[in-house]
């Protein structure tokens, strides 16, 4: 019964947060609205990181790569082909998925800290290419001056912070909802099983590399979609948006939120990004110090949340898990995924 109560309470909190996010643009100032829109886009990348890190058991520092692919594809489409938001979103998600598919051979057999380093390399290589492919990307100075996006054929372009924010919110809510639905299907069940014990999953006759590739491509599509939202929210993109610090902060945000939970990852990533952006505004010169202290404090304040991030990075332990797995780990992830 206790589970039931908690499930409802969590549902209520989620509904409350969503309601708060919907009314936010009429309550807060333009700055907060603009920052929220940008944060939502990054939090959506956090969701894709959680999908790989927590659900599929592949900690990643490379989701900035499909994120960047989506963003730049969106700009190209936006300035040359169509100003319709859903078109740009679809193209961006497609670009993210294609880039993820191209990198599948690199990551599909790797696990743990090896994935972390391979994805780091992929992210850095993509940023390097972006900085040098000036005819498309505008180089390290980035691209600005994209035409305003209209969400759908016949609708007016998004001209205010409120409008851009609401568009972002709708897209993020839709994509997160889709991800949650996906996790309730067979695919989600198999991903969780694979994270628990990949060898066992294989012994049952499942084609694990196929699942991993699928998850990687799906996460790439989500990150790509988030890229198109960044373009809308920020009206400017540059390789700096997709650098190592972004991917590191997203991974840490996801760790704070609980890697195995989509909702937690969304909140964690949003929180980390929002706090960082806010600190750079209000505490000039001391932002890294405070941010670092906050990370350390989080480990102490949120032990339960953080300790769910039980992705072991040592290659040797990527093999079968011990049957005497600690109960805390077992229980915590399960109710989360059904939220």
């Amino acid at each position, binding site marked *: 019964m206790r589970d039931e109560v908690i499930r409802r309470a969590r549902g209520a909190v989620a509904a409350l947060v969503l309601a708060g996010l919907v009314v936010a643009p009429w309550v807060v100032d333009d700055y907060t609205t603009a920052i929220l829109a940008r944060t939502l886009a990054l939090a959506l990348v956090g969701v894709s990181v959680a999908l790989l890190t927590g659900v599929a058991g592949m900690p990643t520092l490379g989701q900035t790569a499909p994120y960047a692919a989506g963003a730049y594809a969106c700009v190209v489409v936006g300035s040359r082909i169509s100003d319709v938001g859903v078109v740009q979103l679809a193209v961006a998600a497609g670009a993210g998925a294609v880039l993820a598919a191209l990198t599948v051979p690199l990551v599909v057999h790797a696990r743990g800290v090896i994935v972390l380093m391979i994805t780091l390399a992929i992210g850095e290589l993509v940023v390097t290419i972006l900085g040098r492919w000036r005819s498309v990307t505008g180089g390290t100075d980035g691209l*600005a001056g994209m035409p305003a996006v209209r969400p759908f054929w016949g609708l007016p372009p998004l001209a205010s912070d409120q409008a851009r924010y609401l568009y972002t919110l709708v897209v993020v809510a839709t994509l997160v909802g889709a991800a949650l639905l996906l996790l309730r299907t067979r695919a989600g069940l198999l991903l969780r099983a694979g994270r628990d014990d990949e060898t066992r999953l294989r012994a049952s006759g499942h084609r694990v590399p196929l699942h991993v590739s699928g998850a990687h491509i799906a996460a790439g599509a989500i990150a790509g979609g988030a890229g198109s939202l960044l373009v809308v929210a920020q009206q400017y993109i*540059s390789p700096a948006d997709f650098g190592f610090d972004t991917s590191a902060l997203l991974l840490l945000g996801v760790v704070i939120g609980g890697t195995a939970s989509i909702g937690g990852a969304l909140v964690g990533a949003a929180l980390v990004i929002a706090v960082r952006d806010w600190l750079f505004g209000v505490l000039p010169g001391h932002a890294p110090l405070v941010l670092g202290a906050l990370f350390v404090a989080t480990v102490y304040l949120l032990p339960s949340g953080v300790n769910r991030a039980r992705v072991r990075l040592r290659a040797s332990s990527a093999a079968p898990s011990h049957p005497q797995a600690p109960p805390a780990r077992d229980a915590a992830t399960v109710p989360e995924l059904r939220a």
Partner: protein
Amino acid sequence: MPHTTPWHSRALGATLLAVVLTVGTACGDDGPGPSASGSIKVGLLASLSGTYQSVGTEIRDGFQLYLDTHDGKLGGRRVDLVVADEGNGAQTAVPAATKLLKQDRVAALTGIVGGGSVAGVTPLLEETKVPLVGSNGRPELKDVSRVWHTSYLSDEPGEAIAQHVRDTVQGSVYAIGPDYQGGWDELRGFTDTFVKIGGKLANSDGKTTFTPFPATTNFTPYFARIKASGAAAVYTFYAGSAAVDFVKQYAQSEIKDVPLYAAGFLTEGGVLNAQGDAARDIFSVLNYSPDLDNAENRAFVAAWKAKHDGSPTTYALASYDAAAVLDRAIGAAGSDPTPEAINTAIGQLGQIASPRGTWQFSTTTHSPVQKWYLRQVRQDGRALSNTVVGDLATVGR
């Protein structure tokens, strides 16, 4: 028990988020432009943490120095200076600028170290109709109607020194620089002009060598290539840590006797201390040197030295001049200095007296038409300093 953990952390997360939002909104929401009390809000965005912290600090201090020496007033109005941290680039600069422009509603924005950050802030300027008087990075921009710079265009230092190098160096010159927009522009300014006036590059394919940035900490392999090319001189542009590594390794390399010419940032400010003796004799081109002999500069340097160790840099000077530009523009904008009015007034300033000598804004690029100086690193008392050894071209479009 374990079943309660997700609920705990989620609730805490939501609460924290709410706190952030509340604090975010609780801050003031005044209208743009001057407030009733006759004061005016100016936003300063500069790298106060991270890789470019030393440049960012100079920019903040240069602006503050102008305020301190002018009763804290610009254009007769008390200045409420709101400082925000640009961080390492656009990813942190854009949200910080959003705060200055949309929450603090500053009447004008100044500072900004990185060209990428300026590019990222430009759409916000267009949206909020606030002018930027930038004091450092200046990217390629389509529309400069609200963007002014007291610094320079990245290709101007090279353009200014090309003739001198052509006249002085007997032989070909090797061009090398960092692989990012700033490096490309700086080097292109030199090579284009140099080749146009008949100079010959020693680079094997006739193209500048670009080193990965900021990843390169070891320049030895490049020095081997320069040695092999038989160059009679080297022209380069680096700043910050890369400048320290480049100069120190150069002095220990097999090409240490090949004359080194550079855009002035190679030996400007704090990096010169770190380079030490390795920097001796390097020639550089810059729009400023603390030993320039004019009344404005003597006052500026004296005021600076009263507050800080060492001499002011071109970064501090540009920010000091940005304050001077705003001082005159706000004064000329009349009784209601709106951002629009300030922007219009900046365009009508004409000649500006400055520690670097008199300069003015170009009407097309909105950056200075100014004189450039040839400097050499020489002993000055106990320390090394950049000493002006000659005037170069006046450049600006």
